[in-house]
């Protein structure tokens, strides 16, 4: 690709801040006409925000967008579509109970006036869908299509709007290998017709296979861009990870781990018709010993959280078994799991863990009410206050008093309340999912130290995190997952961010070794 050619799209110096976060800090993105452009980066690198700005769903704080030589500012998604930029999100925006034709031309049905010319609607739709290999009656309901076919409906909608640039956000994540090949054939055809595609994916092999150029973001900044032909997967991984390996997070001296406390064998969960986008689990097996911290690394959608929830009885699974101290156990609900000595600190503490309007005291004791029993029905509030006092000191929770609403605490202190809730039960196994998400650096270190303390006291800890430095800092042993499968296992001493990233993103892990 000749760099002198005037690009179709030029985003320059795009900046965007949210309260407390600088999501984009002067990002540039250039896409030429008829080019397939890979936009790459870790979770939280700023890809989504950049694409939302391009789609008109959010407005930038500063920076400019030039499309086809004209300066643009999109007030809303409709304006972006009119200009010829269509975004196909990972979660489709189709109406399942309407036909293919209605979905393709939604809001732009051929008239006269307020009436719909159904035969023209069907004919126009068929003309587009045949071109991309969707051989279906245009009146078929979208609900009855496979995920891959639904994606084609999205593409047909984009083509019906005469778009010049189609943004595809992880289009292959829900597809089988054969379907991916078909999709790539269509994408190449679009390219041949002069349509540009921005391609977001976590599968780096796909970048090499289909993309012409790439742009890599990290922490809201550009860290690299160029022709795909000039780089290897390893180069891209280095760019994506590339932050200074700081000594911010201290390691711990791992003790000698004890017996296996929890083992999972062949955990499998398939998608159901109700939830076709759910992350599948495919034969997941792992184990954690007393006094050990097992890290699980993987990108969003890799099945980390789903594995944790299945173990904890929060979601059902199809086959596989869970063993505690070597004995198979039947866990059908979180209640069962708690009785077996398992605790879960869920990934979203506000939605899944806390009663925000209620007191710290009641938030901390809710799972331990059995142990605070007084005369069979009452809560022993003297004991309860003792519990709050104990954990306030132990975890260094900064709060005004036990009656303070937990929603008024800082993120770090909220997370400590959740940890206290489980520690009060003296669990055998504690699973922490994104234990430091959204909390400041100082509190992160404190939470890490708490995990160390827990392991030291003999608890088997499973730590899930999207942040590789965190996984590397807290874990004794690390398991990586990708698309519902365990893809590898390393001891902390042998692990690097690059190695983990390769294990998380590549189909064959051998390639990264």
């Amino acid at each position, binding site marked *: 690709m000749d760099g002198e050619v005037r690009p179709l799209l030029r985003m320059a110096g795009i900046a965007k801040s949210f309260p407390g976060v600088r999501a984009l800090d002067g990002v540039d993105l250039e896409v030429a006409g008829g080019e397939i452009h890979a936009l790459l980066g870790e979770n939280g690198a700023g890809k989504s925000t950049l694409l939302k700005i391009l789609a008109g769903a959010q407005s930038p704080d500063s920076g400019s967008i030039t499309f086809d030589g004209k300066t643009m500012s999109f007030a809303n998604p409709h304006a972006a579509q009119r200009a010829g930029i269509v975004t196909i999100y990972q979660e489709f925006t189709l109406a399942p109970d309407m036909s293919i034709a209605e979905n393709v031309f939604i809001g732009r049905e051929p008239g006269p006036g307020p009436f719909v010319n159904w035969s023209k609607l069907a004919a126009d739709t068929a003309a587009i869908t045949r071109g991309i290999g969707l051989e279906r009656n245009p009146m078929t309901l979208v609900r009855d299509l496979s995920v891959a076919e639904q994606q084609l409906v999205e593409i047909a909608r984009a083509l019906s709007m005469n778009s010049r640039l189609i943004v595809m956000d992880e289009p292959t994540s829900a597809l089988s290998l054969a379907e991916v090949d078909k999709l790539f054939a269509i994408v190449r055809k679009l390219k041949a017709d002069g349509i540009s595609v921005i391609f977001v994916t976590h599968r780096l092999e796909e970048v090499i296979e289909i993309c012409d150029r790439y742009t890599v973001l990290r922490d809201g900044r550009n860290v690299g861009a160029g022709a795909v032909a000039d780089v290897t997967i390893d180069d891209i991984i280095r760019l994506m990870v590339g932050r200074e390996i700081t000594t911010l997070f201290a390691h711990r001296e791992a003790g000698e781990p004890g017996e296996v406390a929890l083992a999972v064998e062949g955990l499998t969960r398939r998608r159901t018709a109700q939830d076709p986008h759910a992350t599948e689990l495919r034969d997941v097996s792992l184990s954690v010993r007393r006094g050990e911290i097992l890290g699980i690394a993987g990108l969003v959608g890799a099945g980390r959280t789903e594995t944790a929830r299945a173990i904890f009885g929060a979601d059902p699974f199809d086959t596989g078994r869970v063993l505690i101290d070597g004995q198979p156990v039947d866990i059908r609900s979180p209640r069962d799991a*708690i009785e077996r000595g398992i605790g879960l600190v869920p990934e979203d503490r506000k*939605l899944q*863990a806390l*009663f925000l309007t209620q007191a710290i005291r009641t938030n901390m004791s809710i799972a331990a009410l059995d142990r605070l029993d007084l005369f069979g029905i009452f809560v022993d509030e003297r004991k309860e206050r003792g519990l709050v006092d104990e954990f306030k000191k132990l975890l260094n929770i900064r709060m005004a008093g036990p009656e*303070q609403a937990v929603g008024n605490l800082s993120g770090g202190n909220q997370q400590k309340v959740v940890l206290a809730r489980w520690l009060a039960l003296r669990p055998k196994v504690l699973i922490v999912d994104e234990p430091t998400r959204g909390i400041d650096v100082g509190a992160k270190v404190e939470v890490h130290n708490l995990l160390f303390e827990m392991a030291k006291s003999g608890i088997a800890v499973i730590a899930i995190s999207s942040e590789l430095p965190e996984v590397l800092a807290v874990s004794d042993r690390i398991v990586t997952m990708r698309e519902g499968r365990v893809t590898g296992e390393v001891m902390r001493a042998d692990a690097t961010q690059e190695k983990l990233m390769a294990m998380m993103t590549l189909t064959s892990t051998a390639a990264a070794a």
Partner: protein
Amino acid sequence: MSEAQQAAARNGGGVDLFGLLAKFAPLLFLIVLMAVFAILEPRFLSSINLFNVMRQVSITGLLAIGMTFVILTAGIDLSIGSLLAFAGLVGAAVAKGGMQDRFTVGDGAVGYGWQLAALAAIAVGLAGGYIQGLAITRLKVPPFVVTLGGMSVFRGAALLFAGGGPISGFDRAFTWWGQGKFGPVPIPVIIFLVAAVIAHIVLRYTRYGRQVYAVGGNPEAARLSGLNVGRVICSVYVIMGFFAGLGAFVLSARLNSAEAVAGTGYELTVIASVVIGGTSLFGGIGSIFGTVIGSFLIGVLLNGLVMMNVSSYIQQIIIGVIVVLAVAFDTFAKSRRRKV
């Protein structure tokens, strides 16, 4: 400033005026309303009138105690008026020993006594609540729909049971529960206040009460904390049914009659009492104390309007407007909380 000090500043020392106001607004409003009526109509403050207000409030107040449990779980029960009518008729039929003596007046009627009558009314209430609770938790039908259906079902059952007519004329031991007094205090008022104290203790001090607040505050978090969310939700409709049955018994005793049209429109008055008392329709926030104040507030308002000869049509309009305003305030308070 340290984080602890900041936290203290956010919460301590009356800085949270809004929260304080929200907590005591109903009580304040009640006092102001009573003062206004007392000035406009001196008879209002007579002890006879005040006990009269309390007696009128006691039936809907009993229902409001049950409704507090339901609304704390972010649910609603529209069936209570109908369930009350049905339970009242069944209880009355038991008191009269069947349907053949249904109009025989006084102690002459052969029956099973007030004890069995009360038990029968309460049993009907419990069963009605349990069935609805199961429909909500097992069939996953929203409470609004289940109890809207129940509203029609129980009213139909009541009409069917009594052939549309009343059952009246109980013995003195029965009617004492509605018409009797302990000193100057009407018995229904005592029943209401005792029930309120017990309900307050249950919600505030028992493990079960904690579970009700937790399920209402965040059902997913409650589930992940090991609570049986379905059972807690089902239980609040059973409790609501208990109070519908108890209310039915007391109402029958007060009127010396049970009718299929009894309790019509109670759901609005009762929900209004609970919401005005500060219990959030979004669940997880509220108290029995608030509900008692809310019940008195509605009672005082209606009584004052009657004394000032305001038409009962206008009273309906006023109640409706107050409910909407109370919910608007609740929504506003929720958006304030979210910003914290």
